[in-house]
C-alpha cells in the first residue's frame, strides 16, 4: 500500500494531462469529449487522493508523514528549494476535499456550461485549478505552497473573467488578482524572513528549529526566536487575509461572483479561499509560538465573520448573499485556528466545502432555471414596465436572473433544487444533525473555552447567518412567483441535480467525521478537539431557530412584486441601506486607494516624467543647442578666416613653447 505514496504526484499530474489534452486537442472534440477528459482527470485525482488516504491510514499514527522529492527546483547559492510533496493527514484532508468536491463540481459544470462557446476553455481552467490547488496543499515547503497559492489566484482570475466580454466581469477578475497580490506581498516578505531565519523553506526543518532554538541571529543581532516568529506569522497572515478574504482585503470575493457559478462553488467557496486557513493550520507550530499573531488571527476572523454576516442580510443578489456568507464562514474558520482550534477550523473547512458548494450549485440551478424561464416568457410577452419605486435602493433589473426580487415561489417549479438548497441552508445555519452544526459548534465551544469575547462575536454572527439564510429561502422559494420568468422556471437536468444530491448527502453526514466523543478527525490530524459543550450547542441551535423564525415572520408573503421594498427597510432603514452598500467599505477603498493610485500615476507620468526627468535631459540638450547656435557663428564658411584662426593658433602655440622653455 505504501507504494501508492510514491505515486502521489499523479494526483497533480492527472489534471495537468487533462488540461493539456483539452487545450491542444479539445477543439477537435465536441463538448462530450472535453467533458469526459476533464471529469476523468479530476476523478483520477480523487482516486489517487483516496488511495493516499488509505495508505496513510494503514500506517501507525506517528508515521503518517511522508515526503517525496520530485526534483530540486531552485538552487541558487544558499537558496535550495526542492519541488517536493508532503503527505500527512492535513494535506490528505485537503486533497480529499479538493478532489472530491472538485469532481462533483466538474460533473455539474458539464451541464451548467452546456452550449457555452468556450466550453473547452472552461474545463482547461478547471483542471488547471485542480492541479494548482493540489500543488498548494501537497507542497512540502512554503515556496511550493506559494506556487499553488498564486496559480489558484490565476485560475480565479481567469474564471471570474471567463465571460470577459462584460468589462465589469473582467474588472472583477483583475480586482481579485490585485487584492490577492497585496496579500501575497506580505506572504512573500514572510517567506524571505523565514528563509533568512531558518535557512530553508521546508516545513519540517522550520518547525523543528523554531521549537528547539530560543534565539536567532539576524543581521548581526541576536533576537529571541519568539519575536522573529511573531513577525513571520504576521506577514504570512497578510497573505491569508488576501486569499481567504478577511478584513480588510475581503472586498474582492463578492465581486468574484461574476464568474460562472460552478467556479464560485469550487474556487470561491469550497477550496481556494480556504487556503489561508490551511496555511495557518499548516504553520500551527509557528502560530502557537506567537500569541500576538494568533490573537490577531482570531480577532480578524471573528470580526470578519460578524461584518460579512451583517452585509449578507442586505443583499438581493442570490450569489452575493452566498459570497458574504462565505466570507463570514471563512471568518469562523480563521477565528478557530487563531484560537488554536485547528481541528475545529479544519473540520469546519471540510463541512463548509460541502454545504457551501451545495448552496452555490443549487443557486446555479436556480439561476439556470430562471434563465430558461426568461427565455420562455420573453416569447409570450414584451419587456415589462416597472413603476418607479420609492425605495432608496435601485430597483431590480428585470433581466437579472440572480436578483432574488425576481424570484419567489420556485419551490414548486424546482423541487429538487429547493430541497437540496434547504439542506445546505440549514447546515449553514447550524441546525442539528446537519454537518454545519457539528463543526460550527466545535468552533464555538473552542471559543468559549479560550476567549469568551470572541465566542460572543461569533454567536452573534451565527445568529445573523441563520437569519439571512432564512430570508433567502423565503425570498427564493416561498410565496408566489414575482415575475413571469420565475413562474416559467424549469428544474435542471440530472447532470446538475445528481451532484446536488451528492453534496446534500455530504452536508448531512460530513459531521460524522468528527462526531463529538470519539472525535475521529481530531485523532487523524493530530490536533486537539474541544469536547462537546451542551450549553453552547443549545444556545446556538436555539438562536438559529429564533433567527429562522424571525426571517419567516418578516418575509412571509411580504414581497409580492419585484418593486416591493424589503420589509427590513421599513423597520431599520439606515442599517439596511448600510448593509446593502456593504457599509461603504468598497466605495471608500475605491475613493482612497484606486483613485489615489490613478492620481499618483497621472502625476508621475505627466509632470514628473515629462517635466522633471525628461525635462532635465532635454534641457541639457537645449542648452547645448543654444550654445552651439552661438558658436556656429564662428563658422563663417570663409576659408581665409579659418586660416587666420589657424595662424592665431600657430603663433600662440609657438609662443607657449618659447615661454615654457
Amino acid at each position, binding site marked *: 500500500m505504501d507504494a501508492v505514496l510514491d505515486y502521489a504526484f499523479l494526483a497533480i499530474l492527472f489534471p495537468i494531462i487533462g488540461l493539456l489534452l483539452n487545450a491542444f486537442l479539445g477543439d477537435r472534440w465536441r463538448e462530450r469529449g472535453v467533458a469526459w477528459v476533464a471529469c476523468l482527470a479530476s476523478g483520477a485525482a480523487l482516486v489517487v487522493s483516496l488511495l493516499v488516504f488509505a495508505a496513510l491510514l494503514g500506517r501507525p499514527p506517528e508515521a503518517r508523514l511522508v515526503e517525496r522529492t520530485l526534483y530540486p527546483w531552485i538552487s541558487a*547559492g*544558499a537558496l535550495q528549494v526542492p519541488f517536493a510533496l508532503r503527505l500527512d493527514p492535513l494535506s490528505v484532508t485537503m486533497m480529499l476535499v479538493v478532489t472530491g468536491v472538485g469532481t462533483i463540481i466538474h460533473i455539474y459544470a458539464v451541464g451548467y456550461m452546456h452550449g457555452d462557446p468556450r466550453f473547452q476553455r472552461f474545463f482547461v481552467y478547471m483542471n488547471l485549478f485542480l492541479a494548482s490547488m493540489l500543488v498548494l496543499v501537497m507542497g512540502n515547503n512554503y515556496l511550493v505552497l506559494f506556487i499553488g497559492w498564486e496559480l489558484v489566484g490565476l485560475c480565479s482570475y481567469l474564471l471570474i473573467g471567463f465571460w*470577459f466580454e462584460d468589462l465589469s466581469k473582467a474588472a472583477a477578475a*483583475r480586482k481579485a488578482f490585485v487584492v490577492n*497580490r497585496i496579500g501575497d506581498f506580505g506572504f512573500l516578505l514572510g517567506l524571505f524572513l523565514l528563509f533568512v531565519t531558518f535557512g530553508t523553506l521546508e516545513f519540517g526543518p522550520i518547525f523543528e528549529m523554531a521549537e528547539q532554538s530560543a534565539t536567532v541571529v539576524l543581521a548581526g543581532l541576536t533576537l529571541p526566536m519568539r519575536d522573529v516568529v511573531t513577525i513571520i506569522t504576521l506577514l504570512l497572515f497578510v497573505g491569508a487575509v488576501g486569499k481567504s478574504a478577511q478584513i480588510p482585503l475581503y472586498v474582492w470575493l463578492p465581486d468574484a461572483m461574476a464568474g460562472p457559478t460552478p467556479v464560485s462553488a469550487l474556487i470561491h467557496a469550497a477550496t481556494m479561499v480556504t487556503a489561508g486557513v490551511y496555511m495557518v493550520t499548516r504553520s500551527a507550530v509557528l502560530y502557537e509560538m506567537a500569541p500576538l499573531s494568533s490573537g490577531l488571527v482570531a480577532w480578524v476572523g471573528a470580526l470578519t465573520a460578524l461584518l460579512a454576516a451583517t452585509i449578507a442580510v442586505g443583499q438581493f443578489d442570490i450569489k452575493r448573499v452566498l459570497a458574504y456568507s462565505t466570507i463570514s464562514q471563512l471568518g469562523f474558520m480563521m477565528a478557530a485556528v487563531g484560537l488554536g482550534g485547528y481541528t475545529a477550523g479544519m473540520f469546519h473547512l471540510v463541512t463548509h466545502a460541502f454545504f457551501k458548494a451545495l448552496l452555490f450549485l443549487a443557486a446555479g440551478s436556480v439561476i439556470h432555471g430562471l434563465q430558461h424561464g426568461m427565455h420562455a416568457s420573453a416569447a409570450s410577452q414584451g419587456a415589462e414596465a416597472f413603476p418607479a419605486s420609492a425605495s432608496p435602493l435601485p430597483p431590480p433589473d428585470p433581466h437579472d436572473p440572480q436578483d432574488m426580487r425576481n424570484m419567489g415561489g420556485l419551490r414548486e417549479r424546482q423541487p429538487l433544487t429547493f430541497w437540496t438548497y434547504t439542506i445546505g441552508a440549514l447546515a449553514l445555519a447550524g441546525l442539528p444533525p446537519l454537518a454545519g452544526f457539528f463543526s460550527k459548534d466545535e468552533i464555538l465551544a473552542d471559543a468559549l473555552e479560550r476567549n469568551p469575547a470572541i465566542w460572543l462575536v461569533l454567536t452573534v454572527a451565527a445568529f445573523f447567518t441563520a437569519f439571512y439564510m432564512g430570508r433567502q429561502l423565503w425570498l427564493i422559494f416561498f410565496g408566489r412567483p414575482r415575475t413571469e420568468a420565475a413562474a416559467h422556471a424549469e428544474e435542471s437536468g440530472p447532470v446538475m441535480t445528481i451532484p446536488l444530491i451528492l453534496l446534500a448527502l455530504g452536508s448531512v453526514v460530513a459531521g460524522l467525521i468528527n462526531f463529538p466523543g470519539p472525535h475521529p478527525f481530531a485523532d487523524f490530524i493530530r490536533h486537539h478537539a474541544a469536547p462537546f459543550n451542551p450549553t453552547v450547542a443549545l444556545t446556538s441551535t436555539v438562536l438559529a431557530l429564533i433567527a429562522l423564525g424571525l426571517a419567516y415572520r418578516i418575509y412571509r408573503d411580504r414581497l409580492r412584486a419585484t418593486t416591493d421594498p424589503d420589509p427590513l427597510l421599513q423597520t431599520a432603514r439606515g442599517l439596511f441601506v448600510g448593509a446593502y452598500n456593504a457599509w461603504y467599505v468598497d466605495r471608500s477603498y475605491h475613493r482612497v486607494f484606486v483613485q489615489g493610485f490613478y492620481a499618483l500615476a497621472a502625476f508621475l507620468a505627466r509632470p514628473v516624467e515629462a517635466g522633471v526627468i525628461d525635462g532635465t535631459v532635454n534641457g541639457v540638450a537645449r542648452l547645448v543647442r543654444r550654445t552651439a547656435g552661438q558658436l556656429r557663428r564662428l563658422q563663417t564658411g570663409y576659408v581665409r578666416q579659418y586660416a587666420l584662426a589657424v595662424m592665431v593658433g600657430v603663433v600662440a602655440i609657438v609662443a607657449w613653447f618659447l615661454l615654457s622653455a
Partner: protein
Amino acid sequence: MGFPLLSLVTFLPLVGVLIILFLRREQEAAIRWVAFLTSALTFLVSLLLVVNFDRTEAGFQFVERAAWIPAWGIDYFVGLDGISLWLVLLTTLISAIAILSSFTAITERVKAYYLLMLLLQVAMVGVFVALDLFLFYVFWEFTLVPMFLLIGIWGGPRRVYAAVKFFLYTLVGSILMLLAILYLGLQTGSFALPDLMAQSGRWVGTAAELWLFLAFAVAFAIKVPLWPFHSWLPDAHVEAPTAGSVILAGILLKMGTYGFLRFNLPLFPQASRTMAPIVAGLAVVGILYGAVVSFAQDDVKKLVAFSSVSHLGFVMLGLFALNGIGIQGAVLQMVNHGLSTGALFLIVGILYERRHTRDMDRFGGLWALMPLYGTLTLIVVLSSLGLPGLNGFIGEFTILQGAFASEVLGWGYTALAAFGVVLAAIYLLTMFQRVFLGQSRDPANAELAHQPLRWHELAVLVPILVLIFWIGLHPNTFFGPMQRSVEAVVGFLGGSALAGW
C-alpha cells in the same frame, strides 16, 4: 587554444553579411532568408557552447587570446563564463527571433536592414565575450551605430529625435567609461580583465576606486537604464521598429547590467559595497516608479518600455545585494526579461502591423477575435508579472530573497521592491484588460478576426514560450552553470557572501 568556437559564434553572422552584400537589392526574399538562416545557424552553433561548457569551472572557458595592439597591451581576448554563457545564448536566440519577426514588417531598404541586424548581432555577442576592456569598449560602442540607424531609418514618426537621443545619451556615459578604461590600462599596462582583477589591489580602498566605479557605473546605469537615467528608453522603444525594440529590450539593456556585474563588482569591490545602498535605492525607486508610470500610459509600447525600467530595477537590486542568491537571480532575470519583454514587444508588433495603432483605447475584446493570440499574450503577461511556474517568478523571488539576505542592504529595500510585484500585476493586467477584454471599442478591430497569426509570428513566439515554462519549472538548468562563476564574483566582493547571508 583549441577550436575558436567563441570567435566563430561571434563572427559567424559576418558570413551572412558577405553573402547579402553580393545579392541585389531587389532580391528581398533571398536577403531575408540568408539573414535568418545565418543567425539561426549562429544560435545552433552557440548551443555547442552550452554542451561543451564545464560547469565545475569558475573561470573563463573557450578562451582565445591574440595580440591586437601590442604597443598598448591591447589584445583580442575573448572568453566565456557561466554568466556570459546565458547572455550570449540569449543574444543569438533573440537576434534570430528579431530577424524572423521582421519578415513582413520591414518592406523598405531590406538589404540595409538585414545587414545592420547581422552587424548588430556581431557587436552584441562581442560585448558579452570580450575580456579585454578595450575590445569590450569597441564592441560596446559598435552596437550603437546599427541601433541608431535601425531606429532612425525604420522607426516611427519621431524616429530621428529618438535615435539621436538614444545615441547621445548612451555615448555620454560611454565616454566616462572610456576614460576609466584608459586609466586602468595605463595603471597596470594591461587591458585584460583577469590581469586587472589580479592587480585590483592598486586602487581598491583608494579614492580612485570610487571615481572609477562611478565612471563605469554612469555608462552602465544609462544603458540599463537605472532610474533616473531612463528617459531615452521610452522614446527609443516607441519609435524603434518591432525587431529593434526586441533587441533593445532583450539584449542591449542587458549590456548595462552585465557591465555592472562583469566590471564594477569584481574590479571595485569596496566601492561596490559603499555604493550598494545608493545603487539599490535607485533600483528600488525605478521598480516602483516604472510600474506606476507604466500604468498611466495609453500606448502599449510605452507601457512595456516603462515596465522595462521596473524589471531592470529588479536586476540591479539583485546585483547589488552582493550575495550569491541575489546575483544568480539577477543573471537569470536578465534572461527572463529578455524573453518576456522581447515577447511583449513582438506581440505589440503583431498588433501594430495589423491595426497601425498602439493606443489601448482603440482596442478591447481582442481575445474573442484572436483567441490564440490572446492566450499567448496572457502567458507572456503572466510571466512578466512574476507568476510562479513561469520564468519571471524565479528571477524575482531569488533577487528579492537575495536582497533580503544581503549584508549591505536593509529589509526596507526588499519590502519596497516586493511591492513592485503588486504594481506589476496592476499595470499588466490593466493592459491586458484594455486590449483583450471587454467589448471592442473600434469597429476596425473586426478585421482582426480574419487575420490569424501567421507562421513566422508563431515561430518567433513559440521558442520564447517554451523557455518561459522551462525556466519557470526547471530553473536549475540555468542556475547550474552560472553557480561557480557567480561564486567567484562574490569571492571578489569579500565578506561571508558565499554563504548567502
